[in-house]
């Protein structure tokens, strides 16, 4: 008798256990990463939260975010109460309690006050470099997506983009240092001796001197912009190419010139995509330390960049504090103790929240654009 049932294998197939084992092993490694990530964040949040949360409304320690960075003084007063005061508060305290003795005085550099300076510095660096990179990057992408034909020039451009994307950040630091800090031209009446080339102008004493911008906000922005240029170009080109060819054809058919087509029919539709992917570039720029170490960052600066300037452009030529560099200083230059923990973990937490917000926003936006823009 022919029994079709016999042809069907019963029970678990051969090698089932092996299959389950391999599968769970793979799942294990995957969730291991997730676990490690969660552990990391928990640790930072648990240690950092006391620094930036406060029990009272608005539940955020605004002082930590808005106060300047100062030295922390820790001391006991004669009653044995322990005080932790930032330098300005400390000098007030000393002025008020004149004649009293303080005991067990300890000082911790960079640990008092808040981190307004680094936050502002990072914001300036990020905005500056993103604006530069967007301007040049989107223009380059338009050329690549809209004008370019196969040619040696285009080939070279693509090769350059690919190579730029792979260069280690510290090499960008070297590049920024040797070019923007030491070699780019400035207009000055008093050229420095290390200037590579001085071109005297006929106006007054002025000359164009290739002596660099020194370590300054400007030099830092330029370096960072060079670093993220390839990211911006690639992302923008992708968004431009995602705009259907029909849009362009229709515009050209109506007699629009190429520039009109790009301006009216391509850019508006690809702009959301470009901006979203530039958010990702922002997270990268905000987090980089190596390129700004020698081009823009300074460990201690007691004023915000715009304070005490004789002219509004001075901000560009002043050095700034930056969050990542501040964290480097906090990790490498000061001891870890119960008094410095607030500054250390607090700064890291603020930084992580910043970066996380940016990347989550960009993820959500990207998903929305993908859903919305379907041609």
């Amino acid at each position, binding site marked *: 008798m022919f029994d079709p049932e016999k042809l069907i294998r019963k029970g678990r197939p051969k090698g089932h256990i092996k299959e389950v084992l391999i599968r769970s092993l793979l799942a294990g490694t995957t969730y291991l990463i997730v676990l490690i990530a969660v552990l990391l964040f928990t640790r930072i949040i648990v240690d950092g939260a006391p620094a930036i949360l406060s029990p009272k409304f608005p539940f955020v320690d605004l002082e930590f975010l808005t106060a300047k960075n100062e030295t922390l003084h820790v001391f006991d007063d004669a009653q044995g109460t322990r005080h932790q005061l930032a330098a300005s508060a400390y000098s007030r305290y000393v002025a008020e309690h004149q004649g009293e003795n303080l005991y067990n005085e300890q000082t911790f550099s960079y640990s008092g006050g808040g981190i307004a300076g680094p936050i502002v510095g990072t914001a300036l660096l990020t905005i500056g470099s993103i604006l530069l990179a967007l301007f040049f990057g989107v223009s380059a992408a338009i050329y690549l997506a809209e004008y370019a034909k196969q040619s040696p020039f285009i080939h070279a451009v693509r090769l350059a983009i690919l190579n730029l994307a792979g260069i280690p950040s510290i090499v960008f630091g070297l590049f920024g240092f040797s070019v923007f800090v030491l070699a780019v031209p400035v207009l000055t009446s008093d050229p420095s001796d*290390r200037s590579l080339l001085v071109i005297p102008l006929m106006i007054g004493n002025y000359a164009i001197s290739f002596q660099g911008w020194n370590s300054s906000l400007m030099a830092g922005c330029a370096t960072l912009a060079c670093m993220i240029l390839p990211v911006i170009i690639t992302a923008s080109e992708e968004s431009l190419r995602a705009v259907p060819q029909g849009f362009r054809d229709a515009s050209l058919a109506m007699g629009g010139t190429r520039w009109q087509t790009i301006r009216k029919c391509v850019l508006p539709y690809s702009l959301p995509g470009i901006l979203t992917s530039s958010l990702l570039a922002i997270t990268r720029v905000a987090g980089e330390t190596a390129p700004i170490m020698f081009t823009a960052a*300074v460990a201690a600066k007691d004023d915000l960049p715009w304070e005490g300037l004789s002219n509004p*452009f001075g901000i560009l030529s002043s050095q700034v504090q930056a969050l990542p560099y501040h964290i480097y200083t906090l990790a490498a230059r000061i001891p870890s103790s119960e008094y410095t923990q607030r500054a250390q973990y607090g700064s890291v937490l603020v930084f992580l929240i910043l970066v996380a917000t940016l990347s989550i926003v960009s993820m959500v936006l990207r998903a929305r654009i993908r859903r919305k823009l379907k041609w």
Partner: protein
Amino acid sequence: MKSITTILATAAMISMAGAQTLSIKGSDTLGAKLIPQLAEAFKAAGNKGVKFEIAAEGSTTAFPALANGTAQIGMSSRKVKDDERTFCKTKGVYIKEHPICHDMLVVIVNKNCPVSNLTKAQISKIFTGQIKDWSEIGGTPGKISIYTRNTSSGTYKDWQKLAMGGRDYPSTSLKMAGNEQIAQEVAKNKNGIGYVGLAYSKTPGTKALSIDGIQPVAQNAKTYAYSRLCYLYAPDKPTPEAAAFMEFIESSAGQAIVQKVGFIPN
């Protein structure tokens, strides 16, 4: 390419603008604690208008910065070398020396280390790598971990001269970015040894060693083996802010802060 030149030209115009900042660069020994606190006190004393930028990467950084005009004051924990002075001269900067305080290089070990006194010869042998194990000098057995400053530090070179007879550090030594970092590593490593400025010798978890029986405390500055002067350097024609700040440091209020931070006033 036009756009680039335009941007560069604009940037060039902008960079003419100079802010009246007081930029101080150089020694970590001075710049990590003392100078920021002096700056804070200086501002508290009514000089609100001055803007400080302090970078403490090591004494060697002070002189190029002075020469290039990127700093108005240089901090150094050692005397300026002849070639550095000449280098500044070639850039038209004639630097002037201002000794501001004494410092002592204190040898620190982990608090659980039973050793509390060493001779100069032993120190020299430890830091040149001839003594490698604590048991050789009466400690608990364990390989000695040497923590030194990084190469640009004045302390690094001073120590080489004062304590090591000019010999090189062994390659096993670990180069740390600052005094605080040395103290921190020594506090965490029971076989660690390192040297720090007097102001950093009270870090919890570490213990300062006596050298030839002389304790590293301010009273012994004259007799202690590894004492040195710390300097500020400024051009012979300092900016008004720099001059005022320097005057403040040399005043009694400034010297009181020097003492409080843990240096020895002049």
